[in-house]
């Protein structure tokens, strides 16, 4: 049994967000981090590894420096890494990305008792599309918004956290789950883990390595194969200061109710 975790290196938006004159993100000038939801996916995988001793493989698509992120995940406890990286893959939108990552997962191989984990969404694009699209491309059942995962043999019980409540779903392996931050608290790298990280296997999958997969087609990968075009991106104007009402008397309550009613909130 193995768990394949798909991860993405994203700009650290807790620092300054830099935007190029053409409206795209200036990624080169920003610090990078592992996408926060993906960290929850990695932690979920490592927890299952702690219980079952299964293998955890981390996969990312990105430029060569993304290998550093994979090493950090290995220092947390992942066993193996795959960096999917090639000029031909550059500029991919979620559709193209999921084709390529799915091909990479095919290359690694999905067996009957395997699980694929993704973060719910990345903090740069916020689409939440890549995980579900990978599942579609691989013809695997998928469960999104996992807030709790329990494994019992080949059955995974997932508690999904939705806007208005929870939904519990049972799914058979192999399957793909997308994880949310409520699932767990990601562990730190350990000192011993850091010293082991660089001796663990890290494979680069380039265009040559994946080109024979039916999913890899020049018309469906990279910038050319991406149906999405970003016209512009901008920093939204800051919201104004909120209004504070003080007091616990009837008049204040009526005033509050009046404001909410005027805005059609109640």
């Amino acid at each position, binding site marked *: 049994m193995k768990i394949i975790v798909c991860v993405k290196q994203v700009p650290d938006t807790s620092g300054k967000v830099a935007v190029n004159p053409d409206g795209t993100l200036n990624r080169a000038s920003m610090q990078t981090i592992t996408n926060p939801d993906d960290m929850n996916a990695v932690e979920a995988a490592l927890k299952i590894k702690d219980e079952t001793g299964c293998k955890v493989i981390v996969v990312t698509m990105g430029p060569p420096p993304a290998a550093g992120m994979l*090493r950090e995940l290995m220092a947390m406890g992942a066993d193996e890494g795959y960096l999917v990286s090639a000029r031909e893959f550059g500029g991919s939108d979620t559709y193209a990305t999921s084709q390529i990552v799915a091909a990479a997962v095919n290359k690694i191989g999905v067996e009957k008792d395997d699980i694929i984990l993704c973060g719910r969404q990345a903090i740069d694009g916020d689409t939440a599309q890549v995980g579900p699209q990978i599942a579609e491309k691989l013809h695997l059942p998928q469960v999104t918004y996992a807030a709790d995962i329990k494994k019992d043999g080949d059955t995974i019980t997932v508690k999904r956290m939705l806007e208005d409540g929870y939904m519990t779903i049972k799914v058979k392996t192999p399957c793909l789950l997308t994880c949310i931050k409520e699932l767990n608290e990601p562990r730190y790298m*350990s000192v011993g883990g850091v*010293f082991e990280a660089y001796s663990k296997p890290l494979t680069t999958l380039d265009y040559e390595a994946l080109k024979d997969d039916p999913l890899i087609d020049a018309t469906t990968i990279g910038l050319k194969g991406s149906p999405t075009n970003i016209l512009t991106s901008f920093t939204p104007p800051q919201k104004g200061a909120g209004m504070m009402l003080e007091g616990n008397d009837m008049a204040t309550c009526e005033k509050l109710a009046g404001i909410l009613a005027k805005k059609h909130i109640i």
Partner: protein
Amino acid sequence: MDFHLTNEQLMLRKMYRDFAENEVKPLAEEIDEEERFPMETVEKMAKLGMMGIYFPKEYGGAGGDVLSYAMCVEELAKVCGTTAVIVSAHTSLCCAPIFEHGTEEQKRKYLPDLLSGKKIGAFGLTEPGAGTDASGQQTTAVLEGDHYVLNGSKCFITNGNVADTFVVFAMTDKKAGNHGISAFIVEKDFPGFSQGKHEKKMGIRGSSTCDLIFEDCIVPKENLLGKEGKGFKIAMMTLDGGRIGIAAQALGLGEGAVNEAIKYTKERVQFGKRLSQFQNTQFQLADMHTRMQAAQFLVYSAACKKQLHEDYSMDAAMAKLFAAEAASDVTRRAVQLFGGYGYTREYPVERMMRDAKITEIYEGTSEVQRMVISSHLGVK
């Protein structure tokens, strides 16, 4: 000396910083205020391998190097001097002498629990009448059959109240002076051993400091560390290594104060300008950072030399002397830049200033470091 950090060291620094920021910093003020030992932090550090960084995996260590250990103490000290010294005293003063001078049996018995952080270590050399003059040991150890009987007391023992395993020094032959001192591994449950009351201190107030009392304390013969009469040498070698840890603590304290001062002076407005716009502030911070950068070179250099098994005694003394004095100066200047707010407990710089002072005193005062350095220079 090449200070290009390895990939592993860069990754560790990031990990230490994350850990310090998220787990250590939020407790720093509270443990100082309440004089509370942060056992919960020690348990977390133990899980991550931070209590045995530079020891081999075969004994339960993390398989790292001395510089990675110094960087850990440095990063912890940037936010909490107390947490930094807990790691430093445990690692340098208890784990190191057992690893470096212990028999294979002693190493197998004591190191796995110490290096995994299941047990905490401490070091007992200082006595009421034997501080800088460590050779004036009054604690005695008399061999009686299959055990030694220890009598006497130790004071100012870091980690004293919380430790399980102690490396302790006692006179086995009073007439022989330094050559009559021997080292022992003492467990807290040995009959006749007890820990005294918590010492109230100016700084590092969350760290445990107490007396150790030996009243006909029975220590098995096999717990003699090194040979009889070689204790003074073991103590001095241990303190050489310990100085790298304390120098790293001082380094972190100074760097932490610089970070706080930069942040504060960019926000605080007086006379219609941010403090950071005044040239006095800019010059002060330039000097403070330069001093800490110089300290970092000395600390890292000493750590690298120890790792390479080169003679690092003078390097460790210079690192501790310079880093400790720089830390005291820089933290004091940080308080000054904060003005009245710096003097209050609302901001961390006054704590850093209190914490920094001890680095000029313990594990050899600055005066002792000057003695060590000048003796290496052959100046008599």
